[in-house]
């Protein structure tokens, strides 16, 4: 079963990613700022910001246009999940296990993104198979 709903957790998470990505353009924070240097920082901040925007588009079109929602959510989850993994590495690189709480949070977020990505990809593949019949 695939209920096409506008999930509040999804909306709030991508709002947070969008806001953090926008904020990182001005002040990337200690962990990310020390882990990434030069252009790589702005590439990743752009990835995070774009993922947030695409995730919000996915949430808004979840009920009316499932196809657009699934495809944009797929891209948003790849970007957001990758950034969360990167952020966990950045925290570990800066503080090692002194900030284990932060590491766990971002690894948990990354796990959630990849798990959801698997669900979305299964649904996309199913719809493509049905169309091909």
């Amino acid at each position, binding site marked *: 079963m695939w209920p096409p709903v506008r999930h509040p957790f999804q909306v709030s998470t991508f709002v947070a990613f969008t806001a953090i990505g926008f904020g990182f353009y001005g002040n990337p924070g200690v962990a990310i700022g020390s*882990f*990434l*240097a030069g252009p*790589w920082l702005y*590439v*990743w901040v752009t*990835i995070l910001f*774009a*993922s947030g925007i695409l995730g919000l588009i996915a949430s808004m079109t979840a009920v009316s246009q*499932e*196809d*657009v929602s*699934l*495809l*944009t959510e*797929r*891209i948003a989850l*790849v*970007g957001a999940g*990758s950034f969360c993994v*990167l952020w966990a*590495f950045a925290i570990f*690189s800066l503080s090692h296990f002194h900030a284990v709480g932060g590491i766990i949070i971002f690894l948990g977020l990354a796990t959630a993104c990849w798990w959801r990505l698997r669900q979305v990809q299964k649904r*996309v593949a199913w*719809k*493509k*198979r*049905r*169309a*091909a*019949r």
Partner: protein
Amino acid sequence: MSGRDWLAFVVVPIVTVIVSSGILVALLRLPSDRRQMAASTEHEKASTADILTGKALEMVDRAQDEAEEANIRAREADQRAQAAERTAGEARAEASGARLQAAEAVRVSMECAAEVQRLTMARDAYIETIHAYETWILARHPALPSVARPE
């Protein structure tokens, strides 16, 4: 090259290139993927319409069957009601006959009681007459024959 340098100059760039190129490719393929998936959405809508139509037809058939069964049950109930009315009529006739017979029996018993009373009074009158004759006979001291049983 230290671990941190390895991470900063090799791993991060490679991962960055992989992730950003993957995102760009997915964005570029979005219209074609959407076209592929739109065909399945139409197929789903058609299937849903077929299923709903099929379900509606099933519901109509079921409603017709139930209406027919209800008619049969109504007819049977009417027949049972008519039979019950006939039975009730026969029972009422039987009850009225029984009441007439009871009234007749009461009348006959009353006539019998009256007859018994009349005969009793007649018997009493005859007994009084017999006593009167006995008294008259005994007053004249006749020689009465012996009625003793022979031994």
